[in-house]
Every structure is written in structure tokens, then in C-alpha cells.
């Protein structure tokens, strides 16, 4: 049944990602562009793809490099593909890679292209540090001054307070609320207990550790021989704690609200470096090249709400639309992958999916329903695996499809919450 709008069916042929590593650790000297290059090069190599087949490369990143803002173009200029490849960069906060995938998929569905690589990369070890406004103004004036006295005069405007650099905070520009404060607010509004959050975080680590130990999770990971000196190799995510316990998690102090809060470093996703990407093709092209795709895109939907309300609750609005577009219900889903920004957010999203109020806000009379825990994030999620903003969406897509294949399942649902009150949901399917 043709379900992807009115267009052609889009195959997710394969996907790969770098290990996800905590910011400031193994990949601290690798830029987001290079993380992107690493995973795209490996995707091309391991899928035995001829680079000449690639027509478009779409990449997501959240904190752009000021010097090279179009990360997709930088990646596509690698000698592994023709210079004529169309390349553009998208930004939809933590759903950026999803945006990259759906943008590329749309081009395929429309019949404009047949082969694309889409994904995302983020290096939170390499965030740009900005000059203050006063400092920037003085420097710009000085660079424009034609004489030495003019330059000196321009620079003399600098005041001590101007010397303090600005680090981009993960906060909403409109509300000023940080992501953590938003999660804290959602925990309170949805009545999510500290204990439930810590239990959920524990579950995430345990499942990810099991997936790593038995190779289900690592099958999507490429080894990274760490440049520039190649003295080490990273093959697994380094944020997963197989040895953590509820006691340890519950002992952590709340970060955002020290008095009444429940969100801790333990039940939130860590700052992470990593890159991930997928190879997309029209169904016919994939078959003509002899590929057995991991799966197909059945439907997707984006949604948004007021960031001042519940910042990370929009997946609840997107999921029913994606399911409706797929002509399927939650009961049809063999697996559900939900991005774990915070345990509080996941638990809020789950409550929202069961709620008639939220269903009505999304325009449906019945709620999506209760997600079966045995099908939810069965190899952990962003809390344990890590969360390089721009890359996560691609990681979740591949994690979902790999496990769907292993289980012989047919349908999978994914949701991703994103800053700005944005939400994403996609239904993927496998041929049986």
C-alpha cells in the first residue's frame, strides 16, 4: 500500500553512526564536520555504494560552525562522491537529523532524486565561544578604521565586562528557560516522581548495556580510529553505565531546582559528541542496485506548541498524526523508540499519549494509548547512549529498524522532542 503521501516509497537502505562519546572525552578534538565525514565515509564504504550514485546529502546540526555553516556541503565535498551532489544543512534542534531524513525522503518521494544520504552530527566538545556585544562592536569598528589612532580609539571602547565571553546556553531564547528547567516544570505538571525518573534512567542504562554486550546495539556503530594520531580506537558508546544502581542515581542532587526539583545529571541525557547517517533510496533504485533495505518510511509528522507551556511535549501531538497518516494504530507497532532528553520528558510524553485531553489537542477523539514497556526503547535511549543533538534522530531511526529486523517485526514508531516546543514522529515499516 503506497502510504508515503502520494509519492514513491522511500527505502532506508542502511545506517551507521560513530560511537556516541561524552563531550570532552574521546572525540574532543574532532569537529562536528569531521564526525559527519567519518560516518558518511564509512556508510559509503560499508554499503559498497558507488559514490557516483549519490545525488543529495542533507545533514542536521544544532550548534553550527560559524566558519563553515553548511556542514552538509563540507561533508559532500569529500572525494568519495561527485562535487555535483546537492548538499544543505537543516536545523530543527534535537530533531535535526529527522528533518534531514524527511527532507531527503521528500525529494525521493517526489521523484526528483533516487539516492541521498541524510543524518546529523554534533560536537558539544567544540561549541563556539562568542565575544560579548561590546567586544564585537569594538573589533568591527577597529577593523574598519583606516588609521592607527582610529583603531586605538575603537579598541578603547572595550570595558572589562566586555571581556567576558559568551557560551551558548541550552536555553529557549523566548522564555529564557533552560532545557533542564523545562524538564523540571514538566515533571511537576505531569506529576512525575523522582523515583520514577531514576528508575527510568536505570532501565535505560541497563538495556543499553545489554544491547552493547550482545552486539544488538553496536551493530549500528562504526569503529572510529581517532584522528589525528590514530593512537586509539573507539568502538562503543562511553556514556553507558552497566554498573549504575538505583541507589547511586537517587543519591544525585537535583541540578535545576535544588529545593523541590527531581531532574538530576543521572536522569537526563548527557552532552555528547557523535555523528550518524542513513542511506535513502527510492524503492526501485534500491532493488535495482541489489540492496535489501533495512526498511521503509511509512509516514511522518511534525508538530509544535508554545515553548512557554511544556517545551518537550510536542511528540504527543505529532505521534497520532503520523499514525493516522500510516493508517495504523499503536497496537500495530512492534517497537517504539522515544528520544530520551530527560526521563521526566519521556514519562510526560507517555502520559500524554494516554491522555484524551492531549488527543483532542492533536485533533483526535481517542488517545494513542498506553505504550507497552516491553516494546519501548528496548536498547536504552539518549539518557544512556548519549545525545549529540544533530545526530540523535538518525541514530534512533537505525536503532529502531535494526531491532525491528532482528525481531522480525513489521512496524515501528519513533518520536523525538525538540527545543522550541517542536515534536516529530515517524512510522517505519519492513516488508514481511
Amino acid at each position, binding site marked *: 500500500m503506497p502510504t508515503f503521501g502520494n509519492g514513491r516509497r522511500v527505502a532506508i537502505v542502511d545506517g551507521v553512526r560513530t560511537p556516541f562519546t561524552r563531550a570532552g572525552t574521546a572525540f574532543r578534538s574532532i569537529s562536528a564536520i*569531521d564526525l559527519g*565525514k567519518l560516518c558518511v*565515509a*564509512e556508510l*559509503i*564504504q*560499508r*554499503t*559498497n*555504494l*558507488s*559514490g557516483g550514485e549519490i545525488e543529495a546529502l542533507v545533514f542536521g546540526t544544532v550548534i553550527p560552525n560559524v566558519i563553515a555553516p553548511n556542514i552538509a556541503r563540507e561533508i559532500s565535498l*569529500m*572525494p*568519495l562522491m561527485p562535487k555535483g551532489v546537492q548538499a544543505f544543512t537543516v536545523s530543527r534542534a534535537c530533531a535535526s537529523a529527522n528533518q534531514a531524513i524527511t527532507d531527503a525522503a521528500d525529494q525521493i518521494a517526489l521523484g526528483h532524486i533516487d539516492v541521498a544520504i541524510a543524518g546529523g552530527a554534533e560536537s558539544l566538545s567544540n561549541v563556539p565561544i562568542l565575544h560579548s556585544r561590546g567586544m564585537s562592536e569594538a573589533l568591527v569598528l577597529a577593523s574598519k578604521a583606516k588609521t592607527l589612532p582610529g583603531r586605538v580609539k575603537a579598541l578603547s571602547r572595550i570595558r572589562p565586562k566586555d571581556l567576558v565571553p559568551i557560551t551558548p546556553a541550552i536555553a529557549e531564547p523566548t522564555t529564557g528557560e533552560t532545557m533542564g528547567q523545562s524538564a523540571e516544570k514538566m515533571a511537576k505538571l505531569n506529576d512525575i516522581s523522582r523515583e520514577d525518573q531514576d528508575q527510568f534512567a536505570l532501565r535505560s542504562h541497563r538495556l543499553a548495556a545489554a544491547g552493547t554486550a550482545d552486539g544488538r546495539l553496536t551493530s549500528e556503530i562504526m*569503529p572510529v*580510529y581517532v*584522528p*589525528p*594520531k*590514530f*593512537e*586509539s*580506537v573507539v*568502538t562503543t558508546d562511553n556514556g553507558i553505565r552497566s554498573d549504575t544502581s538505583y541507589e547511586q542515581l537517587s543519591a544525585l542532587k537535583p541540578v535545576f531546582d535544588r529545593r523541590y526539583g527531581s531532574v538530576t545529571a543521572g536522569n537526563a541525557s548527557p552532552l555528547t559528541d557523535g555523528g550518524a547517517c542513513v542511506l535513502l533510496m527510492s524503492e526501485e533504485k534500491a532493488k535495482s542496485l541489489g540492496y535489501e533495505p533495512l526498511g521503509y518510511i511509512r509516514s511522518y509528522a511534525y508538530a509544535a506548541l508554545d515553548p512557554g507551556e511544556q517545551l518537550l511535549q510536542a511528540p504527543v501531538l505529532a505521534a497520532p498524526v503520523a499514525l493516522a497518516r500510516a493508517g495504523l494504530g499503536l497496537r500495530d507497532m512492534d517497537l517504539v523508540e522515544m528520544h530520551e532528553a530527560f526521563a521526566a520528558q519521556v514519562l510526560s510524553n507517555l502520559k500524554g499519549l494516554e491522555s484524551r485531553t492531549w488527543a483532542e489537542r492533536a485533533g483526535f477523539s481517542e488517545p494513542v494509548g498506553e505504550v507497552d514497556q516491553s516494546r519501548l526503547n528496548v536498547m536504552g535511549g539518549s539518557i544512556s547512549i548519549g545525545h549529540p543533538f544533530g545526530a540523535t534522530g538518525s541514530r534512533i531511526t537505525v536503532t529502531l529498524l535494526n531491532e525491528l529486523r532482528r525481531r522480525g517485526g513489521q512496524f515501528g514508531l519513533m518520536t523525538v522532542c525538540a527545543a522550541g516546543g517542536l515534536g516529530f514522529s515517524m512510522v517505519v515499516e519492513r516488508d514481511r
Partner: protein
Amino acid sequence: MSSPYALSAEIVSGIAIITIDLPGEPVNKFNRAVKDEFIALFDRLERDLNVRAAVLISGKSDSFIAGADIEEFLEIKTSEEAQRLSHEGQLLLDSIQEQRTPLIVAIHGACMGGALELALAAHYRIATDHPKTVLALPEVQIGLIPGAGGTQRLPRLIGIRAALDIILTGKNIRAKKALQIGLVDELVHPSILRKIAIQRANELAEGTRKRERHKGGVTGFLLDENPAGRRVVLKKAREETMKKTRGNYPAPLAALDAVAAGYSGGPSHGYREESRLFGEMAMTRESRHLISIFFATTALKKDPGVELPEGAPPPEIMPVEKLGILGAGFMGAGIASVALQQGTLVRMKDADHGRVAKGFAAVRDVVRERLTRRQITKVQYSDTMALLGGTIDYSGFGNVDLVIEAVFEDLNVKHEVLREVEAELKPSAIFASNTSTIPITRIAEVSERPDRVLGMHFFSPVHKMPLLEVITTEQTDTDVTATVVAYGKKLGKTVIVVKDGPGFYVNRILTPYINEAGRLLDQGASIDAVDNALLEFGFPVGPITLIDEVGLDVGSKAGKIMYEAFGERFAPPSSMQAVVAAGRLGRKAKKGFYLYDDEGKKGDVDQSVYSLLAPAARVTSTTSGQSQSRAQIPAAEIQRRTILPMLNEAARCLDEGVIRSPRDGDIGAVFGFGFPPFRGGPFRYMDEIGVADVVKQLEELNDRFPGRFEPAELLVTMARRGDWFHPKL
């Protein structure tokens, strides 16, 4: 219809734009006809008062002028003729320099030899800022010296130190460097070369532009601009040249003499000396041999590597876009590094990630060196590295066009990887082994597609060693051979195709030489005496140093295989066995015949090694800790003992069809292990001393040491008939 002439001139507003474009040739070169055209043309322009200035530009797309036509040069049979040729060249360039109309040369692409000498005589030089643009005086590389004023004009233009660096090495100078040292006046983008050249011609004609002289700063003044400084520079250069060439190469010394004459006796004396020395060099055997190697290399570049019946279609050469490498060790990584630099996608596999990472680091070292030397940009560096992928399974091998295995030298291991990888490959993929010892036929035994199996024997370090031995079996498909030969050339290698057999060609003729060096040690020769004798002969390193470099374990393993195959004449010397048994594996173990420091840098002979050598070899030691006195064996005897068995084995290889021609045998020895190029290779060397004499010397040695020196049948037959390997050059 294209013009039969090389030169054409178009006069636009008083500027003559001369285009040089040799009809029917891929590149421009100087020959008699072109010279005559130049004389006639400049004569005409000089008399045409409408012409105010001239521009010389090439009509070939990416080359200016490649220098003199060497084939025509070889027709010269006497020194006097050569001297006259040089003198005429000097006169032509002199007249160009002195003429009324200034000449501007617009250089894009290679500007070599005589072309650079012409540029030096011109009044202004513009070059393009382009990787293809290189300038050089490569004459010494073929045993000659610049003969058209190059030894006189260059030092005066850029200073004596920079000039000697160019003249004595013959090396390529890139555009940026040429501007830096003042060899050219200006660099421009290729698209505006012509326009700017015409503009400069106008300015020079009107006198609105004067050439700026390159100044060398304080050191420049001290060393280049005064007689005492120049004497120091010349003396130092002579010492260094002697040290490097051991007097085996007369050309650099002659070039030094010519440069010196220009300063000591004034310009006209300098020009006279230059042409006299040019004439002298033109007839040296060193020059003839070096030219023969140049020709052989050029011929090999065009050789598809396979013999086809008359009228058969040319072999089908498949593109190699993705290369699989099995084994990320030093060889595997070395091969990867040269492939990546040619833009090939490389998939490198080894058993564990640690080894793959080491392979990445080794590749990085090679590529980074080019970055450090500014031969490539940062972007090119990262682009090159981006083509390298690592794996511990066979993922990504499904679309490789060629797999090269560089795993452990053990037949079972080779069989295992061949079976494994073949199951992953597409049917058209080629499997090549980089083995240096195991016959390819044995390796191919387990293959489902033995017609797609052959050997690619690279030499270490891969990025520096110019030779590739391609080894074919009875079953190897000709398209497969031709594809691999073409790819080897793409990697910048000189490729010889040899028939399968123990040691192939290079190692097979090297082994008796090394063995004999070892036997000399057994008999009491000192290590440095053996090495020195062969350095004097012209090898870049002596045999004992070489075995330290290769690794004693590797060497003795290869030696054993050939001993088993060929019998007594390959019997390994006891010295090697004893030294290997003592765990001295050579430089990689920082312990061998020589001493090595922590970085692996070679020092003196390790005196303690003598105690391991055959007891008969030991001559009473002097005071303890002092070097032991060794038997005195004359250098000539050491040379005879080691070189002759090598020549003998080379003749056998030719007779058995291991090599296809004496040419391939010469090139294999020169580029494979540095057989002295000024001797032309084993076969040219035998021609020079005479096959009959080779046989006589072998027989004498065979009397003294029965069994090892029996002359090859081919040599005996040739000696009887008075045959030569090569037609006389």
C-alpha cells in the same frame, strides 16, 4: 591540416606572440629542426622594426617545453660533435639575450633543461601558479650538464648556492619556490598568463618596467656576492658531491667545474668550459647508461605488461576505484598510502582494531610528511585520509575491484584469507598477493578464480621505492595482468611483469649476492669492509646494511625457500644463521649487524656481533672491548664475489623466462635494490665488461669455491658466440 612547423608568430600591436607547438608530439622538445626555426624566427623579428617585444608561450595544454630530444642527442658519436651542439645552443641563447626586442617567456607546465636555459636568457619570466608548472635542469640525472649557458646564467640570476642546488640535483622546482628564489619574476593564474605576458612585453618595450633583482640578504651577500664566499660554497659542494657519489658520477663534478670557471676566468671562459665539459660528459659510459635507464623507464610506461598475438584487441583494463587491503602492517599501510594519494577508495582490514589503528597511523605518517613539506594542502591531506576505511570484518569488500593481501608470510594464512575474501568479492575482482617469497601458483591453488590471482610485489618503504614486480602464473588472465600493470603505473611505480617462481626476479638475484656477502663475513671479512666495497661499486647501501634493513628473519626465510628450490648455489651462509639465532633481527629490533639508537638510526658496526660469526672467521682479538681485527680482503675481491653470482642468476632468470627482457632485468635491479644506475643494470653491465669475461671470472671463482659460481648456460653460449644482451647504445 596542422602546420609542419613548431613555431608560429602572430604580431599584435608590435608584440610578437610566439607559440611553440611541435606537430604530432605530446610535448614540446628541442631538436635540430626547432633550433633552426628559432634562429630564423628571431632573425626575422629582430629585423622587423614594427616588433617591439616578443612573448614565447607553449601551444601544448599542460606543458611548456620538456627539454632536448634525447633520441636525437644519442646520434652524436663524438665529444667534438657534442661540444659543437652546446656551443651552437649558447650562441642562439646569447643572440636572444642581446637582441633589440625583449623576450618574455610565459611558462605553464614543465620547463626542463634547455627550456629553462632559454628562459634564463630571456628578459622576463612569468610562470603559472599551478601544480603542473615545474622548472628543472635535469641534465646531471642523465650524466650530462646544462650545455646552453645554464651553468653560467643560473648562478648569476639566483646566486651560486641556489643554482648549485638546482644544477647538481636536477630536481624539480615548483612554481612558488621558483618565485621565492627569483628563478621567475612573477606568478599568475593560467587563465591570464598570455594576457599578462603581453602586458609585460609592452611595459618592457616602453621601458616602464625594470626587472627587480633577487637579493639574498646578508648570507646571500656573504656567500653569493663575493669571491671568497663563493669559493667556500664551491669547495663544500664538491666535498658533498664526492661524499654522495663516491666519484662514480662525473657529471655533477663537471657541472661544478663549469660554474667555477665562469667565476674564475670570466663569462667567456665559463661558456667555453661549459661546452667543453658538456662534450666530455656526452661520451661517458655513465651518461649512456643513465640514458638507457631513462629510455627503458619511458618504454615501460607504455608497456601494457602483456604480450598479445598480432592483431588481437588490446587488453581490457578495468578501473580500480576501490582497493581492499588485507593486513594493516607496514606493507599494507604503505600500499594504502600510495593508493589513497591517487584517489582510490581503500578498505583496510586486519584481525583486530589495534592493528588497523596502527595501519591508520602509518598511512598518516606518509601522507602527513607531504603536508609538512607543503607538497599538499590541509584540505588535500584530509581528503586523502577520508578515502581510508578500516574494518576487522569483510564489510565493504563487496565492491572492491582489487584486493592486495599483505598478511603474514605463511602459505596457510594466505590460503585462509584468500578463501575468506573471495567469498565476499564480486566475480570480476582481482586478488593480488604482496608476498615476497611464496610462489603465487601455490597461493592460487585454493582460489575459485585462479585466473584473477597474481602477485604485486611492492618494495619497502612502498611510498619511496619505485619498483613494482607483477607476478603472473600460468593461469593469470591477460586482462587481469594488464589491469594491475596499469594500476601500478597509476600509483607512480615502474612496473615489470615477471613469471612466477621462488623469489620472482628481484629477490632471486639479490639472494646470492647477500649470501656471498655473508660468506665473506664467515671467512673473516669485516662488516664495514664488505659494505664499503659495494658502496664504492655504486650501491646506495651495502649488503649487510641492506639485510639489517630488510630484517634478518625475513631475509633468512626467503633465503631458505630459494635454497630449497635451487639447491647448493643458494646455500645460506652460517653467519646469517648464527646472527638470526641470536635474536638480532636488524633495524626493526634495533639490533643487528650495526648499532641502532632508540629512534632506529643506524650507527657503527656492532662489534659484539663478530663473536657470533663462524669460529674460523675469528682472528685474535686485540685488547678486550676494542674492535677485533679481521681478515683483509681487497674490495675488488669482495665486489667480484658478490656481484658475479647476481649477474649469473640474472642470466638464468632471462633464460628461464622469469623476466621478459634484459631491459626488465636491468630496471628491476636498479629500481628494486639500487643496482648502480650508472652501470645500466646487470645486463648492461655484463655487456660492458663482456659476457666472455663474466664467464671467465665465474669459472675462476668456481674453481676456488666449487658449486656456487658455475656459469649459467646462457652466458656460456653467449660467450661462445660473442653475443650481447642489448643492442649497442
